[in-house]
């Protein structure tokens, strides 16, 4: 416990809240009120500070779970592969009375009477390529057939499938070692393969030279936004007086994305080396790896890797005799998608609810972690740094296309024969090659209906649409080219031109059996569940959209619904603190726009009768506007009433 506290600056003990909660829950099984008060006292906080966390992060529980706790992924790729059926079967096999109707904030937990098993739906576990998946305790169970629910309950080991070797279209840089014969995750294997040579090279270079190499390489962030990495690094002043922090964003949780999981599990030292080079370049003496809570095994592997590297004097004081001290710490999340947003991540790392910060003024490079300059990079991005140092920035930039350099890992899930990860030169493969060749095509007899090309937030692309790309002609001029979905190159700019984005590289394929209202509803549920609730439009709008699609699925759609859905989404996008606003609005906007007929078919009921006519305030205020002065219908003739007072 003291060790967990010592990972953060002495005056920032609040950061240890989440680690202490994890320790408490591992030891006692759940977090009691006593635990909340105890941790608050230990860290000099108020009990409410801890209660806020326990209720924000779904992995913390305030009631004991069963002896075996099973988390079933309910997000899109797993749901398409049958995770709802799996949940039903698991409930039956475990004797648990299912209570999975989302009535509150979290997907509720259900437990059997004897307390042996407890079941819970969770959002994306980042293993969409082997859907459906569930976590039994800390052990990931992949490719779980719904009918095998009885076996799953008995398993105490992780199960998966062998790692795939490279497809001929691939160009493996980051994933070079994944699936290699005899490859292990320990440092000896890594060093035998020439590991840490790039770090040794980097420490001989001037810091600005490293930054310049990264700028030259044209590397764009692989987390989702595609922001140029060198530009980001350039925001850190070389003569910065405050401590600089590097944070590795390992909160991989964008539905459809499952690349960082494999880097962490199979090749952790590649990531450590990338972090160390980056730390050296940025003069950051402390790096935190924020790893999502659903990767307990990944966290253990990284802890081990850091200790192995420390034994080799790669981490810690006087790294490689350079006089540069560099510490890397692991910080585990606890089930909040919003921690993937960099300022939300920083807040979470500071021991708070992961409420993204307003920008301006809180740009991480200026006022980041502990109000110090901070760089937040994705796992894959940091791995690329190692290769940029190895190859040189200019050489790296030759990979891929201009402005879309390097390789990137795309993850294919959904309705394909061979879902999985593929490392390609950016733009060197088209959507069609990816789906029909590399991923083995659609299931027998099925047709491609739609593709979500960059994680669930990316706008959906309809297979029957044609797309317009701007292309440079041999003579240098630009011309439009009409192409089909299959011809869209898998790079940042082409996918943006097609009206979507490359995002985090998670490609979800939907075939012609998919009901688009059901699909959108699944995503809406994800976003309603994951909205942090800080700012109004996303907090209220995400749940509203989910309630509308819920109702449409249950047969209660009214004619206004498609229009309302889009309008609600429009009122969210661009008006929120962070990009989650767009992330939750884009699916709705694009699904309804591209598959309007399906939404209209489910929205056939007449709208309920309007309330009794009322006037808008504007109509009432406006002079002569809208509301007429109505004279009495007729003169009642009081003058004839006389003294009797009766007409």
């Amino acid at each position, binding site marked *: 416990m003291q060790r967990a506290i010592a990972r953060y600056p002495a005056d920032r003990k609040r950061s240890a809240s989440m680690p202490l909660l994890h320790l408490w829950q591992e030891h006692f099984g759940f977090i009691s009120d006593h635990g909340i008060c105890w941790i608050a006292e230990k860290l000099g906080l108020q009990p*409410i*500070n801890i209660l806020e966390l326990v209720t924000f992060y779904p992995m913390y529980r305030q009631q004991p779970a069963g002896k075996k706790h099973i988390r079933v992924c309910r997000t899109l790729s797993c749901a398409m592969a049958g995770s709802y059926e799996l949940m039903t079967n698991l409930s039956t096999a475990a004797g648990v009375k299912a209570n999975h109707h989302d009535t509150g904030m979290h997907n509720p937990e259900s437990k059997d009477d004897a307390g042996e098993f407890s079941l819970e739906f969770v959002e994306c576990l980042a293993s969409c390529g082997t859907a459906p998946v569930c976590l039994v305790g800390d052990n990931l169970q992949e490719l779980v057939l719904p009918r095998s629910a009885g076996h799953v309950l008995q398993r105490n080991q992780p199960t998966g499938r062998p790692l795939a070797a490279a497809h001929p279209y691939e160009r493996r840089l980051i994933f070079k070692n994944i699936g290699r014969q005899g490859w292990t995750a320990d440092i000896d294997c890594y060093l035998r393969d020439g590991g840490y040579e790039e770090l040794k090279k980097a420490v001989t270079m001037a810091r600005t030279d490293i930054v310049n190499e990264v700028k030259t390489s044209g590397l764009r962030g692989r987390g989702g936004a595609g922001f140029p990495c060198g530009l980001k690094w350039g925001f850190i002043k070389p003569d910065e007086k405050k401590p600089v922090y590097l944070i590795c964003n390992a909160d991989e949780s964008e539905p459809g994305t499952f690349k960082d999981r494999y880097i962490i599990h199979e090749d952790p030292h590649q990531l450590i080396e990338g972090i160390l080079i980056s730390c050296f370049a940025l003069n950051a003496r402390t790096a935190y790896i924020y790893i999502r809570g659903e990767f307990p095994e990944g966290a253990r592997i990284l802890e081990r890797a850091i200790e192995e590297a420390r034994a080799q004097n790669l981490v810690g004081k006087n790294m490689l005799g350079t006089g540069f001290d560099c510490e890397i710490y692991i910080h585990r999340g606890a089930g909040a998608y919003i921690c993937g947003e960099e300022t939300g991540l920083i807040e979470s790392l500071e021991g708070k609810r992961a409420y993204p910060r307003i920008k301006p003024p809180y740009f991480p490079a200026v006022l980041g972690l502990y109000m110090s300059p901070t760089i937040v990079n994705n796992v894959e991005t940091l791995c690329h740094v190692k290769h940029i140092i190895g190859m040189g920035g200019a050489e790296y930039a030759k990979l891929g296309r201009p402005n879309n350099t390097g390789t990137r890992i795309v993850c294919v899930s959904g309705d394909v024969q061979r879902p999985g990860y593929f490392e390609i030169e950016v733009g060197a493969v088209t959507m069609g090659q990816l789906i029909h060749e590399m991923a083995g095509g659609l299931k027998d007899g099925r047709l491609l209906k739609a593709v979500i090309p960059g994680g669930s937030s990316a706008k959906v692309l309809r297979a029957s649409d044609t797309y317009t790309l701007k292309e440079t002609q041999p003579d240098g001029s630009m011309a439009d080219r009409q192409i089909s979905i299959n011809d869209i190159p898998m790079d940042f700019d082409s996918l943006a031109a097609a009206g979507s984005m490359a995002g985090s590289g998670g490609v979800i394929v939907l075939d012609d059996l998919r009901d688009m209202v059901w699909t959108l509803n699944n995503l809406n549920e994800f976003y*309603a569940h994951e909205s942090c*609730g800080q700012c109004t*439009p996303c907090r209220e709008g*995400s*749940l509203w959209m989910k309630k509308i699609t819920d*109702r449409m699925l249950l047969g209660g759609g*009214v004619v206004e619904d498609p229009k309302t859905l889009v309008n609600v989404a429009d009122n969210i996008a661009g008006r929120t603190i962070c990009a989650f606003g767009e992330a939750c609005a884009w699916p709705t906007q694009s699904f309804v726009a591209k598959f309007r007929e399906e939404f209209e078919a489910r929205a056939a009921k007449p709208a309920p009768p309007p309330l009794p006519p009322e006037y808008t305030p504007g109509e009432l205020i406006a002079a002569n506007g809208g509301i007429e002065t109505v004279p009495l219908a007729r003169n009642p003739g009081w003058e004839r009433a006389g003294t009797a007072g009766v007409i």
Partner: protein
Amino acid sequence: MPEETAKSMVNVQVDGVWKQFPRGTRLIEACEQAGSYVPRYCYHKKLSSPGNCRMCLIEMGMPKMGPDRTPVVGDDGMPVINWMPRPQISCAQDVAEGMGVRTNSPMVEECRRGVMEFLLINHPLDCPICDQAGECRLQEFSVEYGSAESRFLENKVKKPKNVELGARVTLDDERCILCSRCIRFCQEIAKDDVLGFIDRGSHSVLTAHPGKRLDNNYSLNTVDICPVGALTSSDFRFKMRVWFLKETKSFCTSCATGCNTVIGTREGVIYRQTPRENDAVNSTWMCDYGRLNFDYLQSDKRLLDPKVHDGDKLVPTDWKTALIDAAERLKHFDGSEIAIIASGRMTNEELWLTSRLAAALGVQLIEIVPHRGAGDDILLSADRNPNTNGARLLRVTDEPGAKLAAIAEGIASGRVKALIALKENPLEAGVSPEDLSELPAFVLMDILENPSTACASALLPSAGFAEKRGSMINGKGRLQRLNRAVQPPGQARDDWEILRDLIQEYSGQNGIYTIEEVFAQMSRSVPTFAGLSLSKIGDLGVQVMEVAESPSPDEPGKDEANKPESEKAAN
């Protein structure tokens, strides 16, 4: 080029008109100063800006830069503005040179309509029975940005209602719009981090940990700043529709700080007291202790009739009889046989008349009773007398309480044969019950019945702080003004009138008819008040003394004394 401005000012275009604002002005404040009020929920000028309600979205632009990195100048000689495609919040940024703002464009209005709809979909629409009705920001902005018809066909999110957040604050979570003002107030002002949000998304709920509730002495300020009906005062809620309340500007007399207040009354009954902004005194806050300290004015212990001792008991009489009786009793004694126990709770006017009375009687033994309690670093002063500085200035005391022992001893030894007690209980000032009951003359002016009232030979019921006019000087030397919010009950009278009449009965002098005249007389003989009048004190008071709050000379107050000019300008 725009005309050269002082470094401290920047040019900002608000709704098409260029204006100048001091550097460091919040954009939302600048818009308001320019006459374009931007609606807001989470923003409060005395708290940090979280930017979470999104109501203050505006269209913003920065100067368009030419290739040489200098602003492009348009035909009007002012910078051409490069408008951002997305709306921006105006609460979290300061004005900058060449900035442009549109507060009423179609995009901005659309944003506000959207946010209003989002805020209302899960908010109960039971305004007629909501205690916040009439002072609710949701209602207020609904007039401009609300929709008459709802297109929300779903069930609303259910949340806890009637939550006892603390001893004095009740929470209705369904009305809460999660603006976090109350949380920030507790963290930043009250320094008592007890509130927080639990759960997530649309199910987020404001709460306190059951083991540590919202019980600090500033808890009711959260009710003031709550823009909706979520937080209500357990004392005030459902007692009165706020639009019926008559509002009287006053200040709190529960300690030497003198927080500026508004007293809400209807038909002679006080319903609540709320803080009023005065940056020289209390910012926009006040403590719960002071805020709720008005019930005694409406207690059944109020003294309603003047009474005189007749035989062995006090009998009600009329004012003329009572005052003649009191004066007659005092006339039997020499000034050296009379003592006066006055009060630091009296106004300057009353204290001045008290010193005149003492002079007329030839009394030397005069003192006020110190009242002290625990103070804090926020607003509450350890000196619970609101006008110790006035009593010092008007020579009613040199050191509060110093002469009380001498008075008690004089009464015990029989040297002092008559006692005039003004708004104080002599039994709490060291006089024993036996001595008090055997005193030949005991004239008592007070508002509440207490163990000493039975001993009075003449009992003169007077007015409480909300029932009269007058001035006091707070602990930092600021002269402030009380205004009458309600009439004193029964036959109770303004203290200054009672004192004037006593002086008249004793000395035969005449000639003061209004409290303005009292102040005028006082200002002629007290240089500190020279040139002032009650009306010139104004709503925000006037700095008149350079004092550190007594008795410790280290406490703040000098800052205030250093800027009397600006304060006078503000008035």
